[in-house]
């Protein structure tokens, strides 16, 4: 199994733990999205002033 398959398996496990059973194609789409947004999320977190509260 390649790294993408491992990640898709991890996402499937996370989805199933929430009672949702997506297809491999669904999960590959989610993976693409996460690969784009997670670096942006981290960057925002690094710049957030500590006093910023919800």
């Amino acid at each position, binding site marked *: 199994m390649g790294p993408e398959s491992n990640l898709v398996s991890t996402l499937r496990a996370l989805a199933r733990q929430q*009672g949702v059973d997506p297809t491999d194609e669904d999960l590959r789409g989610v993976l693409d999205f996460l690969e784009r947004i997670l670096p942006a*999320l981290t960057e*925002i977190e690094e710049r957030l002033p500590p006093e910023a509260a919800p």
Partner: protein
Amino acid sequence: MSLDPFNAFLYRSEDAKPTSGTDPGSVPALRGSCVGVKDVIDVAGMPTTAASKLLHRVPDRDAECVARLRAAGATIAGKLNTHEFAFGALTNSPHFGPALNPWDPARTTGGSSGGSGAAVAAGLVDLALGTDTAGSIRIPAALCGVTGHRPTVGLVPVDGVLAVAWTLDAVGPLARTAAECRRALEVMAGRALPAEAPRRVGLVTRLFEQADPAVAAACEDAARALGETQPVELPLHEEISTITQLVMLPEAAAVHLPWLRTRLADYGPDVRARALAGLLLPARAHVTGLRARSWVRSLWARELGDFDVLVAPAMPIVAPRLDAIPADYRLLIMPYNSPAALLGLPVTVVPCGFVDGLPVALSLTGRAGEDGVTLAAAEEFQRATDWHRFEPETEELYTNPVSSDERG
């Protein structure tokens, strides 16, 4: 003969007709107004489907906003097409088909309140209700050449309205004019909105620079009618689209969780993808989104607090063809729609010209709670211009409608 060649309605009442040609100002409140309601908002006795395969309920009571319109004399014409679950910017439900743009039925209305934009543009209703989570009133208003108002979050009650994302959702009007939008909004809000003209107007230069040059030029010309403006930059503008996604997607996943568990295969592919993305984002994404929203809000207050209204093109492009939606459509339009969505700000969208025969529009964004100011600016703009008076030529489409095969 088609009664709705734009696929604007998902359900139509027999007894409501638009009052085109009458002066709504000559009658009290909304008496006689024929109102179309986006199909995520409950109307007693009419099915709510959200243009989905999953939902079909016939509520026994109106959403509060609809009840208030009825109490002011409005007649409900029916339920209007939407992007599936109002969770997208096109109005191309795989289950009900796309809404067609009255200015060119080969083109999208935008969305998600696309049936609302089409119905007002085609004169099928006097007024339509839409919802706006991240642009869903503003986008179809702009692409269909009508006036739309996204209210401050919380101004109009949302009970009886299917949520997309609780902290972003707003219900608002689309109509020919800002004056009609004001009248409907005041009824739905339950109070008068002060009509104070803006004193200081900012021009969001980046959004002009990023727009299609012909759209930008038309908007620049039109913006002169607003008087003196000063160039402004929005704080964290590049990050705001991402922050909005961080807030919106997990909230939407929470709204949809029961159906994601039991009916996942019944969603259209784009909505399913977005809901699953929200489900599988780490929990810290939503927390970071909320923290970043308060950060943006504080910077906005500090840097833009003196401006009463911010002006920009409502959309960077004209309505794309249904068979040629740009691959980056969502990314293209997010910078135009995300800032007010994230901060819950009021925005009035006004038609301001044409490019290749298709409408373009300006957005007028105000401070939270100052809906009356953006509406006053729009009313003043519409006293000085006549772009809102143009109507599409639609007569032939009633006898020769676009077939479902040609709808893209």
